[in-house]
């Protein structure tokens, strides 16, 4: 099931990681670091100005076992949401 924009926008993340201004692989590394600090089932939200972050975080989530929820475009950056899977 695909999460819709409205559903995604209604999710309150347990942790927000502001990686705006960082180039690849910065946001990915920040996401990996941040994920280690929340319990399984929690949602983290990565803010990134790098347009590839949303697809990269999706690939990373699929590989390591997290649930990629999607991304929401904000003012000049993307909010990328992921639920910790393990």
């Amino acid at each position, binding site marked *: 099931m695909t999460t819709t924009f409205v559903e995604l926008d209604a999710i309150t993340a347990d942790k927000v990681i502001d990686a705006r201004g960082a180039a*690849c*692989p910065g946001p*990915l*590394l920040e*996401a*990996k*670091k941040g994920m*280690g600090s929340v319990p399984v089932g929690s949602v983290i939200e990565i803010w990134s100005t790098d347009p590839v972050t949303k697809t990269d975080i999706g690939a*990373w989530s699929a*590989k*390591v076992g997290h649930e990629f929820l999607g991304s929401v475009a904000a003012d000049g950056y993307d909010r990328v949401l992921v639920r910790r899977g393990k």
Partner: protein
Amino acid sequence: MTDGLSMVLFSGTTDKLHAAATIVAGAAAMGRPVNVLLQYWALDAFRADRIDSDHGLAFDAMTPGSSRPVAGAADIPWLETFRMAKELGDVTIQACSGSLETLGFKADRLDALVDGPCGIATFLSAAEGGQILFI
């Protein structure tokens, strides 16, 4: 270690060190064990007394009309990327003992990011069954 990534890092210019660090950090974040062997100019770049220096750009940058790093070569965050990779994942960085001999210094002159000296057979044994990149 079929999921592992092994890399021979030979080059010591900032751009190549950063390209290598990006791949290493990405693989580490994705849960793959990474095994890096430093040779020659990469080894020299990891010397504790010059690791923070400006390591310049590859010859490609000499081409007339080539692009330039926006913030300058000295600000390319290659070292920070390697540090984060080691912090976040299973990353081993070793010094080729043959290159140490050729360049005339011991492993104790290397930055603490380097785990120690390593022989080629040990590196290749660890790399067996996985990919090896040469940069």
